[in-house]
């Protein structure tokens, strides 16, 4: 349990309380390199490296938020929910004859699984 001057890196690694010489051999590395969010992670850590921990916590907030957004897609989920609610509201008020416009054919969504080494996760 560390306290004080820490990097807000969240779950990029989990370390035990007592470190022995075998800790690193069995460490679980949870870096997002070569995944979808590798870009944002690299951006955030470059910023932290440039500013240091204290100033980094102050100035790297946007990069940190983008990294979190890439990991959780939180804002995209909120947008999705808001738009779905609006669809239903308009349908209930009688504006359209069906709720959603189903224009995405099967197979058109092709995520680029080939670009990342980790199947794009």
């Amino acid at each position, binding site marked *: 349990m560390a306290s004080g001057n820490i990097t807000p890196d969240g779950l990029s690694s989990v370390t035990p309380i007592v470190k022995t010489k075998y800790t690193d051999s069995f460490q679980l590395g949870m870096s997002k390199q070569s995944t979808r969010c590798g870009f*944002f992670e690299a951006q955030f850590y470059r910023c932290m490296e440039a500013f240091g921990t204290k100033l980094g916590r102050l100035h790297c907030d946007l990069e940190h938020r983008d990294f979190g957004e890439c990991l959780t897609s939180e804002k995209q989920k909120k947008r999705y929910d*808001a738009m779905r609610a609006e669809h239903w509201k308009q349908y209930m008020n009688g504006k359209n004859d069906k709720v959603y416009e189903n*224009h995405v054919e*099967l197979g058109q*969504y*092709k995520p680029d699984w080939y670009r990342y080494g980790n199947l794009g996760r």
Partner: protein
Amino acid sequence: MSKGPQYQQDMPPPGGYRKFNWERTVLWRPGIIIPGLVGCAVFGIYQAYYQKRHRQTEKFEDRDILNAMEPFIAAERDREWLRLLKKNREIENELMKDVPGWKTGTWFGEPVYYTLGEKWWDPAQLEVFAHSPRKSQMDEMLFHHHSEYSAPKFYDKWIPDFIGRYIW
């Protein structure tokens, strides 16, 4: 060997057996069967070799053609993807006209990614299907579970609609 007890054994008749009368059968005799079998084997070996060569040639040709066409296919795929996203944005524009404070592509003015600037980042699977019913989302996720055959099967007419719209 010393002379032991004498037994009576079943021996061939003196002078040997008589020859087998192949004239009884019209066709089935060694002079025809054996060349026939050998010929079939030779023909089979020849066919196997040339068929395998043909298959391998076709495989190589397909791979060559795909390699040559890869940029065009990638461009077509990307165009399709961009067309889809543009359609999504248009629907969103029209949908959220009356919602106060909404700007298309953002969350009430707050961009999804702050530090990208003018760069583009593909939306996640959820947002792509924001204007499509749940069935098409589930189809997209689950179509791997099905075989290549995707036309209606004989039992599809007996599945009621309230179940059928949620499955493949």
